[in-house]
């Protein structure tokens, strides 16, 4: 057991720091551009230096570096310290690019990957529908071939970023006579066309992160399909395999906890700092146990990655463990802010990554921690995954029947 990075990596960190000090923040003419332009310019340079798009082949605009989770971690830490842009964080780099690299046609990779890893092209994900949430494969949006084009009709929901997205990758039922999963294809759609109607969904905390997307006779070329007809379900299961960020999540959880301790120092109960109240101290310390467990669980997973081992059960637990912790943090914060716990959180902003500020910020976490626990697979779905894939329990009777 050795928690230091070692001289080779310390040298690498110095190299990244020196790169950043000469390239970020932008100077001269660059500094007058808008942030997106600055970010794209910076990414080009950072990709050339081998710091971004590390898992992407050079042929598709990446830097094609050997997988090295420690270097990736150091780069993330140093970019964070310098407040410099990293790889675009959206669903395009997280999901579409790995899917295209594994399952896409050559021309698709050339057309879509380079712009996406730079942040020039943005994507939204057309998966969930009003009637198809956890049971995603029951989706009903139809695609019919009309000559050289698909014609798509239906409705998608919970579509983050649809207002600004250039393209959507979308699950569409193209083979109505095939089975539930076998009837689905994975299509790419240009969002800037008639027939696409994006309506923002206002969340309980007042902001509008998600959208509904109505598709009426939307058209996309016949060859904008990834994989064969009816293979969409399998294509959509392609996951990011490179340099998974296992300890980034743990450091966010730790940062939020530190914010909670700060809040307990600043809040008063009967005129005394809340942190001196024994009941509050016990609750804080109970949460700290989970936070520390989560932190070292992240270190364990990083080590598994470095050794090329499968993380096993623990790898299935990250989401539920961290969303549980965030909910406990937000509930204690809610008690600490006293009468302000009746405030409307609108404008509280901030979701993950940094500790919330002010009563509105904590109330926002009180609400948004629920949203995060639902998004991307609800807590109960996570429990199914842990139970079935982690503990080897049999699949639900209902899920078996509906195949």
């Amino acid at each position: 057991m050795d928690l230091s990075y070692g001289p080779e990596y310390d040298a690498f960190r110095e190299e990244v720091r020196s790169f950043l000090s000469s390239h970020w923040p932008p100077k001269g003419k660059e500094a007058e551009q808008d942030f997106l332009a600055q970010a794209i310019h910076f990414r080009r340079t950072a990709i050339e230096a081998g710091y971004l798009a590390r898992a992407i082949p050079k042929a598709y605009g990446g830097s094609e570096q050997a997988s090295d989770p420690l270097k990736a971690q150091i780069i993330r830490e140093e970019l964070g310290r310098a407040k410099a842009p990293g790889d675009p964080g959206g669903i395009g780099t997280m999901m579409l690019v790995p899917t295209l690299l594994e399952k896409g046609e050559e021309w698709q990779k050339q057309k879509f990957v380079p712009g996406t890893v730079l942040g020039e092209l943005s994507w939204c994900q057309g998966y969930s529908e009003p009637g198809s949430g956890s049971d995603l494969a029951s989706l009903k949006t139809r695609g019919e071939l009309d000559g050289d084009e698909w014609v798509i009709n239906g409705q998608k929901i919970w579509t983050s970023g649809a207002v600004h997205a250039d393209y959507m990758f979308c699950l569409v039922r193209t083979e109505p006579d095939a089975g539930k999963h076998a009837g689905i294809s994975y299509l790419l759609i240009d969002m800037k066309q008639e027939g696409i109607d994006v309506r923002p969904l206002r969340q309980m905390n007042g902001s509008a992160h998600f959208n509904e997307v109505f598709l009426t006779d939307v058209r996309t070329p016949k060859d904008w399909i990834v994989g064969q007809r009816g293979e969409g379900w399998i294509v959509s299961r392609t996951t990011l395999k490179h340099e998974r960020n296992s300890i980034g999540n743990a450091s966010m959880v730790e940062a939020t906890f530190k914010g909670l301790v700060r809040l307990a120092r600043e809040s008063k109960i009967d005129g005394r700092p809340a942190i001196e109240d024994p009941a509050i101290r016990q609750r804080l310390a109970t949460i700290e146990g989970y936070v520390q467990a989560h932190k070292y669980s992240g270190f364990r997973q990083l080590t598994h990655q470095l050794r090329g081992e499968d993380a096993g059960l623990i790898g299935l637990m990250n989401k539920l463990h961290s969303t549980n912790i965030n909910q406990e943090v937000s509930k204690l914060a809610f008690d600490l802010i006293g009468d302000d716990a009746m405030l409307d959180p609108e404008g509280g902003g901030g979701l993950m990554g940094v500790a919330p500020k002010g009563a509105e910020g904590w109330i926002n976490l009180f609400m948004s921690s629920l949203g995060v626990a639902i998004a991307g697979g609800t807590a109960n779905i996570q429990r199914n995954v842990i139970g079935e894939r982690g503990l080897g329990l049999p699949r639900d009777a209902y899920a078996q029947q509906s195949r």
Partner: protein
Amino acid sequence: MDFGLSEEQGLLQDTVGQFLANENDPNQLRARFDAEEAHDPTFWKGQIELGLAGLLIPEPFGGAGLELLDAALVAETLGRAAAPGPFLGHTLAALALARGGSDAQKKTWLPKLATGDVTATVALAEGEGRWMPEQWELQASGSLTGQKHHLPSGAAADLIVVGTAGGGLAIVESAAAGVRLEPYPGADRTRRLDTLHLEGAAFEALPEAGAAEALRDAGLVLLAADAFGGASRCVEMSVEYAKTREQFGVTIGHFQALKHQLANMALEVEPSRGLFWYAAHAFDHAPEDTARMAAVAKAHLTDRFMAVARDAVEAHGGIGYTWECDVQIWFKRAMFDRTWLGTPGFHRERAASHW
């Protein structure tokens, strides 16, 4: 950067695990749990032959000279098997002597502790939750007179490391005049407890400072490790049961209510493995984190063990509530781990003092 176990550490756990699978199978465990005799010398001898008596004793004195992480991995393996025996008290007493003893004391006792010719335990608690060095009041002047509570495996012990006023440590031989052990009716029959009565007992003080604090932190880590092992076994037993027990024509693991309960149990346990690893690692490598992380690990893990043991009873249905079902053995081991050396609430308060 490597936050994982070495090959040797994996081998150590495998060796101990294999020994326990052979020598502490469910029938043997049950017999020891139900036995009148508090101590099974043959089973302890097997553990001694594996080297478990001298893990933390420096090599010049015949021990293995290992780190606390190695001892914690053994504690995890013993906890997983709910293995009876004096490992906990003996390991802590040996550590106290190695840290606090004079050269002469170390030369006299450590080789015998390493070979298991002498078995030792620790006498810390003074009642009303007073487990910590700064809370001890037993006066060490001339001779020892007073009571100490909750000695683990006292019946096996030839030598006792006793906590004294001002955070000192002393050694007492259990065969000496004025030393009497009285069994305490503890629920955990895998680690029987005794009350120590001292009436003018002869003692030798351990002169080196800091040994009592080391004993405390190591003890907290070993309990956390034992709790992790025990809690993991509770999850396993419950999952195994859900895969075999049938109702309504299917194994009950099909039912989502139970599946989710089992997933929650696993979620309470598995992510905290690294917590006891780090607390143990810090003991030898990160002095600034040692006391705090030992407290956090003990509070978190022994609480998880108790909660998961309760869930395990529920997951087993009616049979889980019987003496015949093995779950009760781990349930009672959890009661010991949770309270011995101070409750989770007590150690959370200690951890909070580091914010």
